[in-house]
Each structure stands twice: as C-alpha cells, then as structure tokens.
C-alpha cells in the first residue's frame, strides 16, 4: 500500500512497475487461453459434439469441472473449443484490417492532401459509419450467417482503424531526415514506405493490433450471441451465452463460465496492450 501512497512523488517508477505488471498479468492470462485453445485441437476432457442427455445440466464438480449444458455436453470442453473459435475469428479479422488498412494508410501518407489521400480518408470515414454489427447484418442478410461472415465484418471494421493509425504515424516520419536521405538516394515512395516507414510504425501497429484483437473477441461474442457468428455444432462463447439465457434461473453456471472466459481474455489482451505500449513506445504515455 505504501507504494501506492508514494505514487505522486515517484510516478515514473510506479508506472514502470505497473506497466510490467499489467504486461505480465495480461500475458499470463493470454497464455492460458491460447494454451487451452491449442490443447483443444488435439484433446478435450469430453467430446463437445456428443450428446449425453442423462447427464444434462449438472452443476460444476467432478468430472465436469464447469458442469454440463442442456444436452449434457461438458461446459469446460466447450469453453476450450470456443476459445479456438474466438481467437481464430479475431486473429483473421485483425489480419484483414492490418493487411488492407496499413497499405492504404501508408499510401495516403505519401502525399497528404492529394487526390489519393482524400479518396482513402473519405472511404475510411464512410466505413466508420457502419458499426461492425451493421456490416455483419448486411452480409448475413445476403449470404446467411457463419464464422466467415463474422470475420469479414469485423475485418472490414478494422481497416479504417489501421489506415488512420498508419497514415498519422507515417505523416510525421515522412518529414524526417532519414526518409529525406532515402529519397535523395533515389528510392521511390513504395520502397521508402516498405523499408523505412513500416519498420518504424511496427510498434504502434503491434499495440493497436492487441487492442483490435480484444475488440474482435468482444465483437465475435456479440455476433454469435445474436446468431450471426459461428453456427452449431461449432461451440462459441457468444452462442453458449445465448443458449444459456432461457436456463439462467435454474442453471446460472451455463451463463457464468463463457462470460468469465470472454471478460478474462479481453482483460488479458487489454493489459498486454497497455504493457506493450510502455515497453515498445516510451513516447506514448500509458494513460488512455
């Protein structure tokens, strides 16, 4: 407690300790969930696709650590496999956002105010007006629900985030001396962006990637909760919550565990993002 009280006098030390604490805590949580997801690829305590009606709605205990659902499926096993779904959807969605957003942002930054810059930035504004949920609704209305459509919807939502971030960061880099020397050396905008700008904004991208990853997990949960995400029999945390809703009065454990899994994963990623920011980019202060 004394450290806390001393805080105003020693903000830098406290910040460092807190920073590494949040990083290590976040990392620990994420390792557990990624580990669980990986293990579920080869082994789960119970088969999540087989129904065992006589054992339905069992309270948490042994051998079903988190109890069973209305079909007698093991909730712990479903959480493990659900982690896989969440992580896969969020990772690919961040990949789409980075893969398209970063080149767009870098291209816009080459000549600020140019026609290309205007088109890219106005396009960004437009995509910003469509929350991920609305994109998912439109895609689903046309192609039907599924994990792929959730990935596309969250991915599209991520594009302007990365485009804006990389444009903003690249703009200030373009005025720096080392970029000027590269230009004098005869390098074109494409090569400069790739060889000089990109490595210098990588730290920022990693931090933002972590944040978008956690938002992706939340969005995936929301989409599968309303039935626009992964479809049965693939377990997903959001759908587990949706299914638990009608049974919440007599089987609250069904609603508890998937929710806690989401909160912990998102919390872990956010803590990790905060910690990474401190380490990777000392210029940006840790408060958000």
């Amino acid at each position, binding site marked *: 407690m004394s450290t806390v009280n001393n805080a105003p006098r020693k903000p830098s030390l406290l910040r460092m300790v807190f920073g590494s604490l949040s990083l290590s805590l976040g990392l620990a949580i994420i390792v557990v969930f990624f580990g669980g997801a990986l293990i579920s690829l080869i082994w789960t305590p119970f088969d999540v696709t087989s129904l065992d009606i006589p054992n339905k709605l069992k309270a948490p205990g042994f051998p079903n650590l988190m109890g069973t659902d209305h079909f007698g499926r093991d909730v712990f096993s479903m959480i493990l496999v659900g982690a896989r779904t969440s992580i896969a959807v969020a990772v690919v969605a961040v990949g789409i956002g980075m893969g398209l957003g970063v080149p767009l942002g870098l291209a816009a930054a080459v000549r600020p105010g140019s026609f290309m810059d205007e088109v890219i930035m106005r396009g960004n504004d437009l995509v910003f007006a469509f929350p991920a949920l*609305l994109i998912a609704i439109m895609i689903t209305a046309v192609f039907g629900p599924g994990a792929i459509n959730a990935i596309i919807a969250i991915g599209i939502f991520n594009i302007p985030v990365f485009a804006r971030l990389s444009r903003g960061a690249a703009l200030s880099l373009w005025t720096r001396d080392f970029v000027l020397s590269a230009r004098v050396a005869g390098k074109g905008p494409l090569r400069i962006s790739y060889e000089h700008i990109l490595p210098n904004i990588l730290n920022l991208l990693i931090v933002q990637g972590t944040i978008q990853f956690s938002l992706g997990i939340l969005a995936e949960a929301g989409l599968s909760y309303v039935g626009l995400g992964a479809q049965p029999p693939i377990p997903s945390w959001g759908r587990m919550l949706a299914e638990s809703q009608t049974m919440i009065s007599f089987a609250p454990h069904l609603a508890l565990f998937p929710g806690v899994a989401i909160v912990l994963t*998102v919390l872990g990623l956010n803590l990790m993002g905060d910690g990474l920011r401190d380490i990777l980019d000392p210029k940006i202060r840790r408060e958000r």
Partner: protein
Amino acid sequence: MLRYSLKRLFSLVISLLVASIVIFVVIEIVPGDPATYMLGINAQEDTIAALREELGLNATKIERYWGWLSGMMVGDFGTSYTYRSPVSELIGDRIWVSLPLALIALTLSTAIAFPIGILAASRRGSVTDMSVMGATQLGVAIPNFWFAMILVLIFAINLRWFASGGFPGWDEGLFAGLKALTLPAIALALPQASILARVMRTSLLDTLSEDFVRTARAKGLSKAKALRRHALRNALIPVLTIIGLQFSFMLAGAIIIENVFYLPGLGRLIFQSISQRDLIVVESVVMLLVFAVILVNFLVDLTYALVDPRLRGRQ
C-alpha cells in the same frame, strides 16, 4: 461558423449518398434474384413473377435505386414483404423503444463517466485513481449482453425488482416504460462509461499539464478552480469525439441488448427480417441506423466548433 457548418453539411449529404449506394449494392449482390431469394427454393414461378412485379424488380437497377432513395426522402421506405405493411410504419412503432434506450444509455454513461474521470484525474496516482483505473479496465472487458444477463439474474430473477424482459409500451405510462428500459440502459451504459471515464481522465491529465493551467494556478487559483474554469473545457474535445463514436456503439449495442430483454425495438425487427429474408426491411433499417451515426458525427463536428473557436477558422 456558417461556412464551417455548410461545409460539414455538404460532406454529410455526400456521406449519406455514398452510404445509400453501398447498402443498395450490397443487398443487390444477393445470389440470384431477390424475389427468388425471399420466397425460397420451393416457390412457384408465378408467385416469383408476382413478387418481382410488386417489388418493382423489372425496372433497371438505377431506376430502382432512385425509387428507393427518393422514397426515403419523403419517408416512404417501401412495403415489407412479410409484414405486408409499410416499412416506415414498422420502424415508427419500434424506434420509440430503440431511440429512448440508446439516449438514456448515452446520458447515463456520460453522467457516470464525467465525475469518475474528473475525480481520477484530479487525484492522479492515489488509491482512488488506481481503483477507478482497475474498475474501468474490467468494465471495458465486459460484453454488454453478458452484463445484461447478470443484471437479469440479480435484479429480475433473484430480487424481483424489475421484469426480466418485455416492454409494456408508452401507453402504460412513462414510469412503466422507463422501468422496462432501466436494466437494458444500465447494461448498455456501464461498459461504455468505463471507456469514457478513461478518456476523460487522460484528456484532463493532458490539459492539466499545459502552460495555461500552470499560469492559472500561479495567479492564485485553487487546484479545483483551475480545473473547473480552465482545464475542463479544453479537455472536452477528445471526450466529445468518443461520445460521438459511442453513439454508434450504443445503437449497435441496443440492437443486441433488445434481444436479451425481448424489447420490441429496431434490433428485434432487423433480426426477424433477416430470418424471414425480408430484404426491404433490412435495407431500410440499416440505412436508418447509418443515417443516425452520420448525423451524430455531424452534430459532434458542429459542437467542436462551439467548444473550440479555433476550429471554425481552420476548416
């Protein structure tokens, strides 16, 4: 100010036009023919032909787009295929659930976040600050629909203070309506309030370290007075941006939360329409929601100019 507003208004109209084209095109790329899609694979030829005629699918795409757009401008969103009633009526019934819900949640989130953010910033590094940061870190991570379910479990099922869902309608009186929206609004507001409180704190800390605040303190103003008179107003710009962005999250969130509480709002309408393949309703409700988001961002832009006179000249 007038020039700035007009410029913003112009870009608002352009954004709306482009958004309407995007929505129209996305719904148009439905595999095959919309009439066949809506009726399903077992439909009779003449039923499909009749629906094509009714939907005006025999006209060219540009004519249909123009028809949809010009219709919307006078409040005609077309006729729902499944409900057999004008989409504007369907929306009109439901918007009085979704809009109050989003607005109450937004007000609640702001009312919670402002004092908490200001408190944390003014006592930076203290136990209060640490607790606020910890609690908001947790709040950011909680999915609003799960939080809603927990609220139902506690306040509806165990304590029986509220109904676990449903909406009596505003005809039953303001109190009954507000009571039905209380839990949904709290579920929507708290996670957003966490984000907003963090932004408020950061923004205030940034301005508190500025020269003009130091000058104000040097003049002899107390810390609280310097904060109230000088720092707060200047800290508002990033906070306003986030409030504007939050509105779109609130609308999207309201769509999901309505499902938790079985509220007859736009969210329920849109999901029912998706499962019934009623593309006309989907198209129009999505357009309406995007319109709301763009409009709010426009209003936020105007508010910037009111809060920060420098922006009027720069733009």
